């Protein structure tokens, strides 16, 4: 079990800056995020889109903002647990026991939820029957490509993931590629490669088609696809892969006994604490009168929540407010020279 002063859930801009504030005031913290990379919505939804309302930063992209925040954390040693989702939060006297889907367990007096709109999960096929084949014949991400060798694989989607995998798997599998329109939103080189493979007969391409239904007993046997003009084709297939990007789901947070309204968690505006002592919510996921869903608000909320954490993590010490411009203690923590 990992003991820490504060556990942050979510490695988006708010979570990252909250970590900075915690470390600055002398607390230990670790960060868990369900994505495989740091940056949250900034990196997953709009890495290339310019943002114009970060104070003192006239313009930066989601990726640049993330990189700057990571740079700002350089003086500190912070452990990230990526690809892990927090599933359970349980009370244990004055502490919380937090468990991830990877069975990492934390013991901490402070849990800070900086979860945006929840955790990113793959978007799934709309057909209900697909659930029973999930992780058997139907996948939304690929862990082991060997299972597809010499099989028929039907891939849905029109972005980079769908096309990259169509190209890659076509080396050893028979590929059907299905997309709802003629245009792809993948890198041009990949699109060209796909058309080349279609010509060579290695990929069968069906545009303006979507999944209509699936058939199979224990494993997937065939898929019916339907076109805009209601044309139906049946494709024999061993596997189906869906690449429709990610969607945010509130997920397990809903089960932690917090006051939740419209996917947001109610907090006070002094500590950004929820109705549970020692659990805070900051950034897009928190809600209070006047809440603005801006990155700059998340920074403020995280700074105040960090101070609240101090009281529970160091009950016998008094928190002293200091400036980074003048405090020797803070400069030591930042690893910079004092004057």
């Amino acid at each position: 079990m990992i003991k820490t002063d504060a556990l942050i859930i979510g490695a988006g801009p708010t979570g990252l800056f909250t970590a900075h504030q915690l470390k600055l005031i002398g607390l230990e913290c670790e960060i868990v995020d369900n994505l495989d990379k740091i940056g949250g919505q900034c990196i997953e939804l709009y890495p290339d889109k310019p943002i114009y309302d970060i104070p003192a930063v006239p313009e930066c992209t989601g990726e640049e903002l993330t990189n700057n925040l990571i740079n700002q954390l350089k003086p500190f040693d912070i452990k990230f647990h990526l690809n892990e989702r927090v599933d359970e939060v349980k009370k244990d006297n004055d502490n919380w026991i937090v468990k991830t889907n990877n069975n990492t367990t934390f013991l901490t007096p402070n849990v800070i939820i900086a979860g945006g709109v929840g955790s990113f999960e793959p978007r799934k096929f709309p057909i209900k029957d697909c659930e029973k084949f999930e992780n058997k014949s139907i996948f939304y991400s690929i862990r082991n490509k060997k299972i597809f060798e010499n099989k028929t694989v039907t891939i849905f989607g029109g972005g980079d993931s769908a096309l990259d995998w169509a190209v890659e798997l076509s080396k050893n599998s028979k590929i059907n590629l299905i997309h709802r329109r003629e245009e792809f939103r993948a890198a041009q080189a990949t699109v060209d490669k796909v058309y080349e493979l279609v010509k060579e007969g290695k990929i069968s391409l069906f545009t303006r088609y979507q999944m209509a239904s699936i058939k199979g007993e224990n494993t997937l046997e065939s898929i019916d696809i339907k076109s805009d003009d209601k044309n139906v084709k049946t494709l024999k297939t061993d596997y189906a892969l869906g690449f429709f990007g990610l969607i945010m789901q509130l997920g397990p947070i809903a089960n932690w006994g917090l006051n939740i309204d419209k996917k947001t968690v109610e907090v006070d505006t002094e500590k950004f604490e929820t109705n549970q002592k020692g659990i805070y919510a900051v950034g897009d996921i928190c809600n209070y009168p006047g809440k603005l869903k801006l990155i700059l608000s998340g920074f403020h909320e995280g700074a105040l929540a960090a101070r609240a954490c101090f009281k529970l993590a160091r009950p016998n010490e008094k928190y002293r407010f200091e400036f980074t411009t003048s405090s020797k203690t803070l400069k030591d923590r930042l690893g910079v020279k004092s004057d």
Partner: protein
Amino acid sequence: MAKITYITHDNQNHTIEVQNGLSVMEGAVQNDIPGIDADCGGGMACATCHVYVKEEWFDKISAKEDGEEDMLDMAFEPKKNSRLSCQIIVSDELDGLIVNIPSKQG
């Protein structure tokens, strides 16, 4: 000001007056119309404000900008008349607009 009718998946009609300049998504969110999640808050980055626009209205609203069709690839059961409601800006001309909300947003 325009009267916009949102028809939810269970065939409930919600007709509300939406101020000019707001998006059809904002009209729904501000009036607690169920089924429009708008996770990204109107940034055209999530496809959870997806609606179907009634055929007779589809050509009357402003055309899709770059990026909207890409996002619609990820929407739940997109059709020919699919739009992201955050990209439809309300004006007097849209008085009477009818949109259908899909059964799910993801």
